[in-house]
C-alpha cells in the first residue's frame, strides 16, 4: 500500500517530447485513470511509473521512495497489459507463480497465494491450461491474477479491456470495480475509453499531446470541464460546439451565430461581458438540450431544423441544423415521430451552457 507521486515528470525521445511536466499525487488506495486519445502520452506515463521507460525529466516516487533509477522488478508494482502478455509456454499456474518464484517465495506460500487469487477471479478450472487455450476474458482474468498473487504496492493497468468485445468489456468493468472493493490497492489505469474512465476512476487525469489537461473527479470533469478538449472528450455523445459572437450591455449579454441569438443575464452575462465584441465557442451537451421546453422557465431558446434522427430503442438521437452548424440532441422520447425538415424549438438551462476561448480553448470564467 503506497502513495505515488509524479513531480514535473517528462519524457522526450531526442527532440520529440512525449510527456511534459506531469504533476500528480495519487493517494494510498486511490484509483486514478489516465485518459486521452492515442498518442497523448498516457501509456508512456504509466510505463515510466512501471520502469519500462526511462524518465527524462522529473521525479517519480512510490511509497515515499524515489524510483527513477530502480529497475521494474524492484519497484514492487504489478501490471496488466492490453494484450494480457501471459507467458505462452507456461500453464496458468506457472504464469501465476512466475513472479513469486523469482522472488524466492516458498512453494507452500505460492500455492496459498494462487489459491486465493483463482478463487477471487473464478479461474480454478483453468489452472493447468495454457494461455492459448483460453478466451480473451479468461486470459485477462489470469493477467489480473498474476497481479493479485504478488500483493504489490501499486497496480498498473494499460488499457486492459480494449481487446475484449463490448459485452465482455462492461462485465469485466464491473468485476474490476468489485475487485477494487475487496483488494483496495493504489491503482493507475490507462484507457482511451471515457466510459471506463468515468465508471472506474476516483479521479481522472485527462491528457492530450503529452500535457495534463485536467485532473478531477468524474463528475467534476463532466460538470466543469477546464477546456474545450476535456468538454468534448468526456461525455457521450460529445458536446456540441458553436462559434458565437458576443454582444454585451450592462444588464445582459447576447451571443449570436447564424440562425441563433441567445441572451444571458446574471453570472453568465458577467463572464461574457469581458469578451464583448469577440468570438467565443459555446458548448452544450446533447443531454442538456431540451426539446420544446416551453413549460420550463429561465431557459435560453433557439429554433432548429431536423436533419436526421437515430432510433436507439430507449431514446432517439436527433441531428438538427442551426444555421450552418449541426447540433446533436439526445434523450428524445423514442415514440416521437418527426418528419425531416420539421422546425423544432430547443432550450437549455443557462448553467448547462459553457463558453470557451476561441483560441486556446480554456473555459471562460469571471
Amino acid at each position, binding site marked *: 500500500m503506497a502513495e505515488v507521486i509524479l513531480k514535473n515528470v517528462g519524457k522526450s525521445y531526442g527532440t520529440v517530447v512525449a510527456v511534459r511536466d506531469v504533476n500528480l499525487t495519487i493517494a494510498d488506495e486511490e484509483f486514478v485513470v489516465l485518459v486521452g486519445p492515442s498518442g497523448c502520452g498516457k501509456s508512456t506515463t504509466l510505463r515510466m511509473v512501471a520502469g519500462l521507460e526511462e524518465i527524462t525529466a522529473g521525479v517519480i516516487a512510490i511509497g515515499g521512495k524515489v524510483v527513477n533509477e530502480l*529497475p521494474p*522488478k524492484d519497484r514492487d508494482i504489478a501490471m496488466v*497489459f492490453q494484450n494480457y502478455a501471459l507467458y*505462452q*509456454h507456461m500453464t496458468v499456474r506457472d504464469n501465476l507463480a512466475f513472479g513469486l518464484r523469482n522472488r524466492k517465495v516458498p512453494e507452500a506460500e505460492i500455492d496459498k497465494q494462487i489459491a486465493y487469487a483463482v478463487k477471487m477471479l473464478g479461474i480454478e478450472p483453468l489452472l493447468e491450461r495454457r494461455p492459448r487455450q483460453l478466451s480473451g476474458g479468461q486470459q485477462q482474468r489470469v493477467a489480473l491474477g498474476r497481479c493479485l498473487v504478488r500483493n504489490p504496492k501499486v497496480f498498473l493497468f494499460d488499457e486492459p479491456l480494449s481487446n475484449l468485445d463490448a459485452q465482455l468489456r462492461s462485465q469485466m468493468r464491473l468485476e474490476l470495480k468489485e475487485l477494487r472493493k475487496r483488494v483496495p490497492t493504489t491503482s493507475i489505469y490507462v484507457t482511451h475509453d471515457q466510459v471506463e474512465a468515468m465508471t472506474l476512476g476516483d479521479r481522472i487525469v485527462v491528457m492530450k499531446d503529452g500535457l495534463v489537461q485536467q485532473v478531477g473527479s468524474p463528475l467534476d470533469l463532466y460538470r466543469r470541464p477546464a477546456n474545450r478538449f476535456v468538454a468534448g472528450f468526456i461525455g457521450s455523445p460529445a458536446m456540441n460546439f458553436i462559434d458565437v459572437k458576443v454582444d454585451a450591455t450592462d444588464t445582459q449579454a447576447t451571443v449570436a451565430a447564424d440562425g441563433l441569438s441567445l441572451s444571458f443575464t446574471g453570472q453568465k452575462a458577467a463572464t461574457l461581458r469581458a469578451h464583448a465584441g469577440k468570438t467565443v465557442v459555446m458548448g452544450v451537451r446533447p443531454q442538456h438540450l431540451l426539446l420544446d421546453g416551453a413549460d420550463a422557465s429561465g431557459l435560453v431558446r433557439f429554433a432548429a431544423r431536423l436533419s436526421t434522427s437515430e432510433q436507439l430503442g430507449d431514446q432517439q438521437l436527433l441531428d438538427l441544423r442551426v444555421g450552418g452548424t449541426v447540433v446533436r440532441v439526445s434523450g428524445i422520447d423514442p415514440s416521437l415521430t418527426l418528419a425531416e425538415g420539421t422546425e423544432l424549438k430547443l432550450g437549455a438551462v443557462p448553467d448547462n451552457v459553457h463558453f470557451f476561448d476561441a483560441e486556446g480553448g480554456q473555459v471562460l470564467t469571471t
Partner: protein
Amino acid sequence: MTSLPQLGSSIDALQPPRKGFFAALAPGGGRILFALVVIGVAFLFAFPVLWVLLTSLRPASGVFYVHRGTEFTLHNFVEVLQQESVYNAFINSFAISTFATLLSLGVTVTSGYMLSRFRGPAPSVWFAIIYVLRCVPYISWVLPLFFVTRQLGIFDTYWGLLLPHVAVHVCFFSWIMKGFFDGIDPSMEYAALIDGCTRWGAFFRVAMPAAVPGLTALAILCWLYTWNEFLFALLLTSHKTPILTVVMAQFVHELGMEWHLMSATAILALIPALIVTIFGQKYVIRGLRV
C-alpha cells in the same frame, strides 16, 4: 416478375459445393488441368532424384542404359561405404553441419533479438555491417577466406570451415531471427521484467521459449544449408578434412566418371537431409509463417 414457385424450384436445385483438395483450389472444370500441372511440376522436381536413385542401383556397366536394363544391385553402396574418404566425409559433414548450426544460432538469436528490440548506435552499426556483408556476392568471399584461414593456420581443419560458415549464417539469418522476434509481443518480456526478471532473464526465460518454433525452423535450414554447401567446402578444405559434397564430386576424375558411385554417395547423403526435413517440416512451415 419472377413468380414464387419458380424461385422454390431453383432453391431445390442448389447443391453444396463439392469438397476436395483440387476442387477447393480450382473450382469447376479447371481442376483437371490444375491437377495435371501440379503433377507435371512435381515430376520436374522429382525426376533428377529418381534418376540418381536408379543410377545408384545399376552396375557400373549399366549407368548409361538406366532407362533400359533390368539388372539392379546394391554393390555401389557397399563399395562407397568401404572407401575411407567417404566414411570420413560423412562424419566431417555431419560434425561441421551440427556445430555450424549450434554456433550460428547462438550468435544469431542474440543478434536478431538485439536488432528487433533495441534502438541506438550499437544495433545500427551492427545492422549496417551485416547489411553490407550480405550485399557482397557469396562467391567473392571465398578467395579472401582462403588466405585468411591459411594465415590463421586453420586451413583444412574444422575451424577453417566452421568459422566462415558461421560468419555467412550470422549475416543471413540475423534478419530472419529479427523477423521472428518482431512477431513476438514484447509486452511478455515487460511482464517478466515486472515479475522480477533482469533483461537477460526476460530474454532467456520468456522471449527465447516463445521463439522456439522459429529457432527450430532456422536450425533445420541452417543444418541443411551447411550439409549441402559445396563452394566453401571445395576451397577451404583439402585431404585432411574431406567433406561429403566435395568427395562426391571427386568421383569425376582424370581416369573416368564413376556415375554409379557418385549416385550411391548422393543417395546416402540424401538420407540424413531427408530425415531432418521430414521431422522438421512442420516446424519449418510454422517458423516461416511467424
